[in-house]
């Protein structure tokens, strides 16, 4: 309908993938192909990187419609807040999301991903059309996992991260699947100087993920795309979640809710707490 009425030039959504437990991103250009679109709990990958790709590949003025579940809608909002594109360049097709499953960790309808279990924004904060019914947000402490982890001793937390990041093979699926990792040139791809070693050994892997977490701090919408993208199941989102809490508590900012607010780490307040300063 959007295509027919020329409200959008192309639609980015999901179609059924290589199995019934998987969905893959698809670009729809003609009204007749709209029937290929699906939305259910197999629709895990963030469509935001695909929307960016489409916006860059098409002439200025092209309107790209994106199927946006809560987290993807927030990521789009955050990118607009960061000046990546204008609100009228995208048509947001909002959908309520009950959480997605990972095809490797169970069949569709079985176990929701960890980021979905703690999700408090199942519906996009902004949309142009909404398909289906909004989903009631979850309750309870979304940072419970973080708090639990923080009870561990420093050495044990280190051991946990060493174990997790020891699995990393530096394929950068996490980075490329992330809706907020959109740097033209990632720091790991800079060679003059070569900031980070390229091996798949620690601490090279640790440093990469630490830098990525810091760079997405206050911007991450906890969509969990990084964890679902990781072919080896590295649990990446915990650190991001901790930084999300820090940014919310300290600076009163939550990513992806406002197109106007300046992102937390691009601004300041004279009243920011500084108990850690000597």
């Amino acid at each position, binding site marked *: 309908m959007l295509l027919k009425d020329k409200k959008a030039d192309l639609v980015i959504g999901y179609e059924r993938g*290589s199995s019934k437990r998987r969905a893959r991103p698809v670009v729809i250009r003609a009204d007749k192909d709209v029937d290929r679109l699906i939305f259910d709990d197999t629709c895990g990958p963030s469509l935001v990187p695909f929307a960016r790709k489409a916006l860059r590949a098409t002439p200025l003025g092209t309107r790209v419609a994106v199927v946006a579940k809560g987290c993807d809608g927030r990521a789009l909002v955050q990118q607009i807040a960061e000046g990546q594109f204008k609100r009228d360049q995208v048509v947001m097709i909002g959908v309520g999301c009950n959480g997605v499953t990972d095809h490797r960790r169970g069949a569709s309808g079985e176990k929701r991903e960890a980021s979905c279990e703690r999700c408090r924004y199942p519906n996009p904060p902004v949309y142009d059309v909404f398909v289906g019914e909004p989903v009631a947000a979850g309750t309870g402490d979304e940072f419970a996992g973080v708090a639990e982890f923080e009870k561990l001793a420093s050495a044990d937390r280190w051991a946990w991260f060493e174990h997790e990041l020891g699995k990393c093979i530096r394929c950068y699926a996490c980075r490329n699947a992330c809706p907020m990792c959109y740097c033209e040139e990632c720091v790991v791809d800079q060679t003059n100087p070569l900031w980070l070693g390229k091996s798949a*050994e620690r601490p090279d892997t640790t440093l990469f993920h630490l830098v990525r977490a810091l760079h997405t701090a206050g911007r991450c919408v906890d969509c969990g795309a990084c964890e679902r993208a990781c*072919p*080896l199941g590295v649990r990446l989102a915990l650190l991001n979640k901790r930084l999300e809490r820090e940014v919310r508590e300290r600076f009163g900012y939550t990513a992806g809710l406002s197109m106007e607010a300046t992102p937390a780490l691009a601004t300041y307040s004279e009243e920011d707490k500084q108990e850690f300063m000597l």
Partner: protein
Amino acid sequence: MSSSLRIAKPDLDQLVSALTSRYRLFGPVDVDGSTVLREVKSADELALGAALDGSVKAAFFPQTETLLTYDGTVSEAPSGRDKPTAVIGARPCDARSLLLLDKVFGTGKYWDPLWQRRHDDSLVIGLGCSAPLETCFCNLMGSGPFDAEGSDIMLTDIGDAFVAESCTDKGERFLKTAYKSQVQRPSQADLDKAGEARSKALASLAPAANYSGVKTALAKLWDSALWDEIALGCLSCGACAYLCPTCHCFDVQDETAPGTQQGRRVRIWDTCQSALFTKEASGHNPRPSAKDRIRQRVMHKFSYFVDNYGEAACVGCGRCIRLCPVDFDVRVVLERVIAEGRRTKDKERGTKKDVRHAG
């Protein structure tokens, strides 16, 4: 003459200790739900039932490998010869991939001493695939779930035991020396079960599509808009390449400890999907876009490799589909390539010859 024997599952440790006494043994190990290749010391570490997520190439071509160390003027290759390498639980697709990699690293005018050292006296114990996955397409790449190519010994899971068959002289010799006395021969019932597993596995695979036209089609499609379309479904990460059993590109880096002359030269897997892969010192990049890079990947596997070594650099293990974050499906790509190739022939005969080559 190949011999076969029966190894009850609780007795697998006997095989493993026979292997570890002579070899540095690698096998599939479960790490938090992923199955990865690790060095193993005992049978209970093994996760033989699951599909391996990382490929077996890492046993012979590790992701990060020190080529030499230096300290000022002195430089030396890492000394000390490891025990020869063995792999247990290699699926037929993986076992076959080692033969393809051997064409690159082990034979011909340029060969790699590190690969050769590990591969030449290695032992590969294959494990037949009783339950191929939806993403498996070894049958389309010229082998099958019980193909013995590349394995020295092939195991077939028959429930409470494995039937082990030697496929090469090396495998035969190993079985003879490892099981000098208490050899248990498989009964007819065991052999029947093994045969049944084989035919069931074959039947479960998708019917053989014909990819023989891929290479001719690719020759016409360098400039095709098809690549733009295909690139839309790809994130340009390196997951497929690093999990692929036949991808073998690497980067070489010198790492020097700051403020010293001490360092190492290290070889690290690299992927053509990274923009950095082809970026030149001038800043120019001959493969600037995702389109150029995904085309390179497909071309290298299904065209250039065929030119160089006579077969495609794909064994149909399906990892690139199964573990792709966005379900990019190389089978679909090949079908589209064939279809587009047919159309192109009709429209414009004699597309200009592609003079650019693999890199």
